[in-house]
């Protein structure tokens, strides 16, 4: 067993039984589905909107080459420097080089899961740069030296009391656990950082091929300050974030807000189309856009699962996932957690090492139902299982299914199996839940049903 899977199982077992964690996440997500459904009802037809969004993303992803070229040409025409990074390592080096060239010391950052994917903060800090997260949730987990817990809500696993204690310890200031007061503490710290920062770093929610713009969605205004105050701006974008037309935002902005947080629109939606132009009074002097592949093109090559590139990182699939809600975001050990993480991580980081995430699902399909861009998430989990078993079957598991096949296909064997089950029941009761119990995985926490002497087929036969 690889360390990834054993770590996952250990953490999952611990978290799943952690009733306090269960309650915290339940409280954090309480009301999410209610407000989301209220916002969904504001669409003329949510289902048609999903279909339109899926078709738009299909067009974007299936003609990615064309759209990326158009995006780049438009960005460059207004003086933006566009960089192409095939790997995370290349992206880190490109960004570090920009910082070195600028002789930067302090970087202010708005929220970017893509930067988490390439472990950017760690790499920059190792080079001696100071990196400050400006999204409040990210700021909190950064103080805890933790990765974000959730794609959209990085610190949803923490209570107000815990955040108060953290601020008290790390910042020496936390008058109470009131959200307003805690926010003011963070704001006082951050405002200084915006002014000190040499470079502002952002992610992007969408990149518009038609107009050469990136679109950033946020609730706190921190991304605006990040992009506006420092002289140099750097933006990292996964290549799948491209949308063909400006008008597509009219659908995608409310959709992202609705699916992600049950908001009609996120508070701030800003489109950036270039650095400060001659005659303009504000904006960064230089803007670098780094387009990241990092194995996205391998997913693009997989016709069956290509739609996983539709993902707009809204987190809706995490919010409704009973696995995520019980094991929590950190258990996955991946940047992208929840159902979408279980689908794409095997593509981005290796199928055999990460197939356990696809196995750790009851295939309930709540994710697929919630996905605003109609990614066939839970069926992709099945396909990952199939691909993993086909390339490296587990010897005993396959043998078990081969034996099961022989028994199931031969009525005499099937009858015998049922008889044996019935006969060994008293023995089962003796070993129940102990190390000697072959059904221990079940019986440790659950009772087995009593098997009646007469099966359905016995009844059917006797009746005739």
């Amino acid at each position, binding site marked *: 067993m690889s360390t990834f899977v054993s770590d996952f199982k250990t953490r999952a077992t611990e978290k799943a039984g952690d009733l306090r964690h269960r309650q915290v996440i339940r409280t954090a997500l309480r009301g999410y589905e209610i407000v989301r459904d209220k916002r969904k009802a504001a669409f003329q037809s949510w289902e048609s909107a999903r279909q339109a969004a899926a078709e738009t993303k299909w067009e974007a992803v299936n003609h990615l080459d064309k759209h990326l070229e158009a995006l780049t040409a438009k960005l460059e025409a207004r003086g933006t420097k566009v960089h192409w990074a095939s790997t995370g390592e290349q992206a880190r080096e490109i960004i570090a080089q920009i910082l070195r060239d600028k002789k930067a010391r302090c970087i202010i950052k708005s929220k970017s899961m893509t930067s988490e994917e390439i472990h950017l903060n760690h790499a920059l800090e190792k080079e001696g740069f100071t990196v400050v997260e400006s999204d409040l949730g990210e700021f909190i987990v950064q103080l805890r030296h933790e990765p974000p817990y959730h794609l959209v809500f990085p610190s949803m696993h923490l209570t107000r009391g815990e955040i108060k204690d953290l601020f008290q310890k790390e910042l020496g200031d936390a008058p109470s656990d009131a959200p307003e007061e805690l926010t003011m503490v963070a704001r006082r710290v951050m405002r200084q950082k915006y002014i000190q920062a040499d470079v502002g770093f952002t992610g992007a929610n969408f990149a518009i091929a038609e107009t050469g713009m990136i679109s950033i969605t946020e609730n706190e205004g921190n991304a605006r300050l990040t992009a506006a105050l420092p002289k140099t701006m750097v933006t990292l974008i996964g290549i799948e974030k491209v949308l063909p037309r400006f008008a597509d935002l009219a659908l995608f902005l409310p959709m992202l807000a609705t699916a992600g947080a049950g908001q009609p629109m996120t508070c701030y939606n800003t489109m950036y189309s270039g650095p400060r132009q001659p005659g303009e009074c504000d904006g960064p002097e230089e803007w670098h856009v780094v387009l990241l592949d990092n194995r996205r093109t391998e997913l693009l090559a997989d016709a069956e699962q290509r739609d996983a590139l539709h993902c707009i990182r809204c987190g809706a699939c995490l919010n409704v996932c*009973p696995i995520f809600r019980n094991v929590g975001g950190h258990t996955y050990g991946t940047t992208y957690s929840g159902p979408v993480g279980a689908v794409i991580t095997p593509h981005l980081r290796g199928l055999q090492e990460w197939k356990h995430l696809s196995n750790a699902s009851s295939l309930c*399909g709540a994710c697929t139902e919630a996905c605003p861009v109609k990614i066939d998430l839970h069926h992709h989990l099945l396909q990952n299982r199939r691909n993993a078993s086909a390339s490296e079957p587990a010897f005993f598991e396959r043998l078990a*299914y081969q034996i099961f*096949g022989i028994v199931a*296909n031969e009525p005499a064997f099937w009858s015998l199996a049922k008889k044996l089950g019935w006969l060994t029941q008293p023995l089962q009761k003796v070993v129940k839940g102990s190390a000697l119990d072959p059904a221990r*995985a079940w019986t440790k926490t659950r009772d087995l049903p009593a098997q009646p002497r007469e099966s359905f087929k016995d*009844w059917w036969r006797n009746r005739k």
Partner: protein
Amino acid sequence: MTVTLFIPCFMDALYPRAGISMVEILERLGHQVVCPEEIACCGQPPFNSGYWNEARTIATPVLEKLADAEAVVIGSGSCGAMVKNFYPELFKATRHAELAKQVAARTWEFSDFLVSKLGVTDLGAKFPHKVTFHDGCHGLRELGIHKQPRALLAKVRELELVEMTEVSCCGFGGTFAAKFPMISTAMGEVKCASAAETGAEYIVSSDSSCLMHIQGLLSRQGKPTKTVSLAEVLNHQ
């Protein structure tokens, strides 16, 4: 109509009362019921674990036995989804591709068959209890079955249906329950808690496998709530 009733393997061994109720209901409605004795399992366990060759070994004879059936009725949303939705996928680009599609088109989950195909909702049943209904995820999301069992329960005399506020998976998920027992157990506990909130005496479901999981937890934890299959409720006088 001749109805070919497909009783899933675990129902055959562990919950014969549910299967017997289905036979009695269908016969009472005047249909001829046949149960091919050679069919034990639909092949879902190996399929869901990724062993599609092994799944085809089990599913191929099933498909051949069902080839001439007028209507196939399956006593489980999960196994129903396997035959209706996943057989065409499993047999894609094989010599059984066409047959898989044909059989899928003639296959029904039990409650869906009664309501959508036969147009029957009142089976003359009486069940004087407060119940809540658990939607098995495959029936709900693969087959889109939600109204059918409720339409049937609405006609059961003296039955009071109280819905749970949360629609969630019971955590069974086939081999998932054994591969990740603690996650599965946690999901089951959440389910049991939301059922308990309703104050229902019984949790009713179309899927005996979900009920096996829920009942397993309830019994172990000494909870008073009971479980019963939809077919047994509908056959209760």
